[in-house]
């Protein structure tokens, strides 16, 4: 299973829906997508992880890299995830303290702060 990426703009926010496996092989594709969005002036990103079947540390690194980029522009990067096996990975690495994680895209779209 490869990585799938679709993006849509909602006002000043952009939703990136990710599907499939994010690993050392596919993560560069996600990195490129996040970099392209920031270069295009999209600084408020919502990464929808509900379709993700596998996530490794390289994927986590790309998300942290994305967060650094949007923060440089006073932006935000929110995650949408309810899958326990993916949430566990964020908990083990302490990244639940770094990313706001929402249950739904609509919740992430209306979140402030």
């Amino acid at each position, binding site marked *: 299973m490869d990585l799938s990426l679709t993006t849509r703009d909602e006002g000043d926010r952009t939703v990136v829906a990710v599907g499939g496996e994010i690993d050392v092989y596919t993560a560069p594709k996600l990195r490129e997508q996040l970099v392209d969005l920031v270069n295009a002036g999209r600084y408020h990103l919502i990464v929808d992880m509900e379709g993700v079947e596998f996530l490794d*540390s390289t994927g986590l690194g790309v998300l942290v890299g994305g967060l650094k980029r949007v923060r440089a522009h006073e932006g935000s990067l929110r995650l949408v995830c309810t899958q326990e096996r993916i949430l566990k990975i964020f908990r083990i690495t*302490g990244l639940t*303290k770094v990313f706001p994680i929402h249950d739904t895209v609509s919740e992430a779209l209306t979140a402030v702060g």
Partner: protein
Amino acid sequence: MPTVHLRFSALPAHVRTARLVAATVARRSGVGDDLLDEVRLAVGEACSRAVGQHTRSGLNEPVTMRLLTEPGRFCVEVADVVPIGVPLPGITSAADLLDADPDDMDESLGLALISGLVDDVAVIPGIDGTVVRMTWAATAL
């Protein structure tokens, strides 16, 4: 001792193959279904780390994965051939990650994940390279 050995070129594309092989052999060795996600993720991390070490060192040698089925346990060893010289980066806190170099960040996160997931794990640095050994309980077949 029944074993499966896999040697693969240090390319990111092969890490997925290694994960699938490890998960398949783990299941056949009697590792519980509830642990297979953990096996898949930890083995992937160990292989990604080894691939990264080879790539950064400009080595063409393959990475080796050995899967050992023993009574009551299933053991995975992932070996790189990069001589130890640079100390392994410590497990960083989430706050440190935001300041880290991306390469260091990936490796630190990878080892943090392995340590957090696997109860029985050893990182054994040697003059011929580093072995990451992980062991899970397995019921007899």
